[in-house]
């Protein structure tokens, strides 16, 4: 019955109630669809990094004066438990010459299998035995094709493959580099390893691996440092969360506007219904009963607006995802559902909070004053 009373009071001024509901709908939609989009964007980016989550990078401990990793250390790491595979890399700055044109670039020395594991060929097929592969930028700069010849440090190499352009990586970047086999590298340079990319059996092994390195290789002196990509990923994830939260807060302003409009509508309603409030108090309504009726009205506005807003947010999130990410597969994830729930709750809470003051004001009216009001 109180529900009926509240509902019919809202029906009394349909235009006004509709406006309040639309305000909530827009607010909820803004919050939820931005949340869903942010989540989808994060998921899309993280997907690209997921396969490196169980990677750690071992570098020389520059802080204690080491600038390279020796062979015996590499072997120790290769033999450690938890290690799926270790990919040692040698790095040096080299000079290249192609048909008389010269330039400087990074030269990596690594196993063919490691290259195949980490990168993909755009043209040709990866082969390092006597050959080399080059990064995309190098190929463009020197107009190289698969089969072209280059001269590196006086030695001639055949380009077996041109690698696909790589995005940001944390370990090595092949775009502006030539990759040789370790043997090929040793022909030109005499240098130890600069980095070992270690794939662990599982992401859970990261801590055990670090502990083991500390106890063995670094037992007497800190020879190597271990970087975990897991931490970088966590940082990225956190950053995305913050950006999404920030955008949602901006969207929250629209909900605030909706709240103010509900406040305004309900204050007007309190004023218009002062006499009715007086009548109800006269025939036996507690002041809490009046509070309840008005809060119920705010709650109905909030629920109505939030249900519609959430429904539209699914559509909105889908549309934005399709438009910007080209796929809507992340709209229907538990995380996205959480953002929908958040938008829904914010909508309801805003409405009830906005109704609180008018409801309190209505409930505090003295019966006789309210009755006398014209």
């Amino acid at each position, binding site marked *: *019955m*109180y529900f*009926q*009373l509240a509902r*019919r*009071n809202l*029906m*009394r001024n349909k235009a006004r109630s509709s406006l309040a509901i639309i305000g909530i709908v827009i607010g909820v939609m803004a919050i939820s669809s931005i949340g869903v989009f942010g989540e989808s964007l994060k998921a899309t980016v993280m997907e690209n990094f997921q396969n490196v989550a169980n990677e750690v990078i071992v570098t020389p401990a520059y802080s204690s004066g080491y600038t390279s990793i020796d062979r015996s250390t590499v072997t120790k790491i290769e033999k450690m438990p938890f290690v799926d595979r270790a990919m040692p890399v040698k790095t040096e700055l080299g000079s290249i010459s192609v048909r008389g044109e010269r330039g400087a670039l990074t030269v990596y020395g690594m196993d063919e299998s490691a290259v195949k594991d980490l990168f993909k060929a755009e043209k040709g097929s990866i082969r390092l035995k006597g050959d080399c592969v080059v990064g995309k930028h190098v190929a463009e700069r020197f107009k190289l094709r698969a089969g072209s010849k280059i001269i590196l440090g006086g030695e001639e190499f055949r380009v077996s493959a041109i690698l696909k352009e790589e995005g940001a990586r944390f370990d090595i970047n092949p775009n502006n580099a030539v990759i040789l086999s370790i043997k090929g590298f040793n022909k030109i340079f005499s240098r130890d390893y600069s980095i070992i990319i270690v794939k662990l059996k599982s992401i859970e092994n990261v801590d055990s691996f670090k502990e083991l390195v500390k106890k063995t290789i670094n037992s007497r002196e800190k020879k190597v440092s271990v970087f975990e990509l897991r931490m970088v990923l966590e940082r990225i994830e956190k950053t995305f969360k913050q950006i999404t939260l920030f955008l949602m807060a901006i969207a929250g302003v629209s909900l605030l506007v909706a709240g103010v409009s509900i406040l305004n509508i309900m204050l007007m309603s309190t004023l218009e219904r002062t*006499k*009715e409030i007086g*009548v*109800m*108090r*006269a*025939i*036996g*309504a*507690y*002041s809490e*009963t009046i509070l309840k009726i008005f809060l119920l009205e705010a709650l109905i506005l909030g629920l109505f607006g939030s249900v519609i807003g959430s429904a539209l947010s699914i559509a909105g999130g889908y549309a934005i995802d399709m438009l910007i990410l080209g796929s809507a597969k992340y709209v229907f994830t538990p995380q996205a559902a959480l953002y929908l729930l958040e938008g829904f709750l914010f909508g309801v809470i805003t409405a009830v909070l906005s109704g609180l003051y008018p409801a309190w004001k209505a409930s505090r009216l003295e*019966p*006789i004053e309210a*009755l006398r009001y014209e």
Partner: protein
Amino acid sequence: MDEKEMKVIELQDVKKIYEVGAEKVYALNGVNMSVERGEFVAIMGPSGSGKSTLLNLIGCLDRPTEGKVYINGIDTSELSGRELTELRRDTIGFVFQQYNLIPTLTAFENVELPMIFKNVAKHEREKRAEELLNLVGLGKELQRKPRELSGGQQQRVAIARALANEPSILLCDEPTGNLDTKSGRQVMETISDLNRRGVTIVLVTHDPSTAAFAGRTVRITDGRLI
């Protein structure tokens, strides 16, 4: 004690003073009055004489500036706001000049409302609402909204609503003030019929033919009974 129990309403030296700016308005200036169970009392007086103020004090809608109001022997000055609400709900019925029905509710729901405030079970309250509307001759208009009813019909719905929780006192403030002679007469017949069934009635009017229904008439001018 016995004597008090007989008295449904008792006012002792009641004053109601309004401060309008620097000026003091004595709406009631020392009223002593008592009403016995089953009585029908009319309060007559010119406009502004304090009739409504008096009725609102009896109805516990307002508190006196000075003096005491007893309802069924209870000193109302000792009651909390919540207890006053319960007293109004359970013991007192109000009928106003402007009917004051809730416009969004049907006649039937308006009569149910005081019982809802009292948490009366749905089945019981629906049965009683129907009985009451039959009693005031509106058995056919249960589902109408106030604006679909004539003034006289609205006032009879208001009477049915006032009776919902079986009050011992019915307070009427110019109940025929907005009605034509014929509907006014019907309303007054309904009220005096209730009195015959044992409801104590205090009715404010400035119309002598309305006051004629009462068993006793009290006159008031300038906040004093004469």
